[in-house]
């Protein structure tokens, strides 16, 4: 097998795995919330989630019928051998995974408003690149963006006078108004930026950071913790039925801003947060970072 083939077949298998098995950090957090849950109906929902995760592995089926739009977030070394071909290779891998897993056909061409029937379309799979100088490796996050959890995402630019209080209110309002139907407990990614695009992008990045990780800046980490506690205080519970918690985590990513603009974005992930991280070296040997004991 040449490098391209090895890469494509590994990514295809990995996408299939991500559809069927949640990453370790998400499973651990769900187990923690399940153990702490006191409301009987909420307990029943957590039990159902765990039974579902077990059955999905046993029967080798995607754990939710909505396998989302496939998205890749790449940190690619400028010397990575396949850097020039990543787009067609990831398209190929997505097609194979769609067939094999199988994944639902979730690509509808806009304006034509027609389902392509292949799970791929214009800019789908969705790919974002970050270049890593002096590296020959590729680190990739795969994410399945389901409809239910994509719906509540929002971004806005606030007057700086709204302050960080305004940011917290924006996130809490969005969670209560739209997040309830996105299959909570939710991953909450918040971006603090300078315009709609930068804030939304940071929010998405934040939602892909590990559950339980903290922003290295202690000020930001403090707000993550405080906002997380506040949102859990609303206790929307699993499926928004009410319960003992609301979220799996609050992760915040930030950047400098224009003195007159305070951007905020919020991106949600559902309890079935299908995210995986895999690293390739220059010979296309891989290491899976998100799922221990993952055999592809």
């Amino acid at each position: 097998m040449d490098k391209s083939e090895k890469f494509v077949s590994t990514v295809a298998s990995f996408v299939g795995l991500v559809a069927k098995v949640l990453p370790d950090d998400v499973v651990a957090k769900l187990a923690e919330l399940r153990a702490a849950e006191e409301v009987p109906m909420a307990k029943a929902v957590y039990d159902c989630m765990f039974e579902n995760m077990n059955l999905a592995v046993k029967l080798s089926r995607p754990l939710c019928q909505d396998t989302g739009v496939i998205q890749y977030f790449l940190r690619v070394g400028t010397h990575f051998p396949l850097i020039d071909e990543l787009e067609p290779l990831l398209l190929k891998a997505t097609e194979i995974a769609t067939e094999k897993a199988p994944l639902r056909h979730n690509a509808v061409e806009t304006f034509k408003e027609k389902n392509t029937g292949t799970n791929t379309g214009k800019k789908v799979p969705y790919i974002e690149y970050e270049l890593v100088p002096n590296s020959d490796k590729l680190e990739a996050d795969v994410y399945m963006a389901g409809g239910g959890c994509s719906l509540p995402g929002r971004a806005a630019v606030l007057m700086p006078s709204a302050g960080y209080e305004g940011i917290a209110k924006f996130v809490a309002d969005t969670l209560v108004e739209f997040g309830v139907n996105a299959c909570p407990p939710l991953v909450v990614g918040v971006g603090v930026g300078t315009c709609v695009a930068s804030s939304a992008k940071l929010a998405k990045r934040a939602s892909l950071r590990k559950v339980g990780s903290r922003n290295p800046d202690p000020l930001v980490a403090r707000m993550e913790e405080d906002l997380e506690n506040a949102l859990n205080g609303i206790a929307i519970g699993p499926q928004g039925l009410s319960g003992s918690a609301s979220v799996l985590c609050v992760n915040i990513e930030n950047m400098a801003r224009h003195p007159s603009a305070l951007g905020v974005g919020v991106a949600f992930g559902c309890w079935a947060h299908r995210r995986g991280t895999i690293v390739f070296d220059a010979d296309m040997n891989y290491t899976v970072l998100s799922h221990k004991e993952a055999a592809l």
Partner: protein
Amino acid sequence: MKKVLTTPITSADVEDLRIGDVIYITGTVVTCRDTGHKRRVLSGIVPHTPLEGGAVFHAGPIVRKTDSGWQMVSVGPTTSMRMEKFEKEFIELTGVKVIIGKGGMGEKTVRACVENKAVHCVFPGGSAVVAAAEVEEITDAEWLDLGMPEAFWVLKVKEFGPLIVSIDTKGNNLFENNKKVFAERKEKALEELYPKLNFMKY
């Protein structure tokens, strides 16, 4: 102890259920969503499967054709609110006792549940494999002309659930109640949070 209702379900079976109760169903459940509701209510076309005392599941399944019939691969709840427009008439016309879906439903459905002694329940979203495994057999398929997700699938189920009652026969509506409770809790949580967010310099 699991509370299991067996179809045909009677008014007495559901009368004392209250929002937040967890139940399971054994017997027959049919899937019906947007177009199916519209067809039943507006066109007067009646499926030959009797629905009196039955349960309707707002879901568009993934089904595989086999030599002997059909196999359920994956079936998960879809947002019930999309059926709000026709659910009241659907309940009145068919005599279903349990409506199953995701999220809450509105005022019209609540009235129908009170007047006809029926309940709306939530099946946990994202648990499509559990739901599929609780389907023992697909006994019939009607309205296949509407396509796989919209067709009227007749499912033989065993202890199908958990189903969390979200609208009961007394007119209580879990999601409506929650909306108010969450809004209040949110205000309180934010009031307590604001003093900690004094990052702005002045």
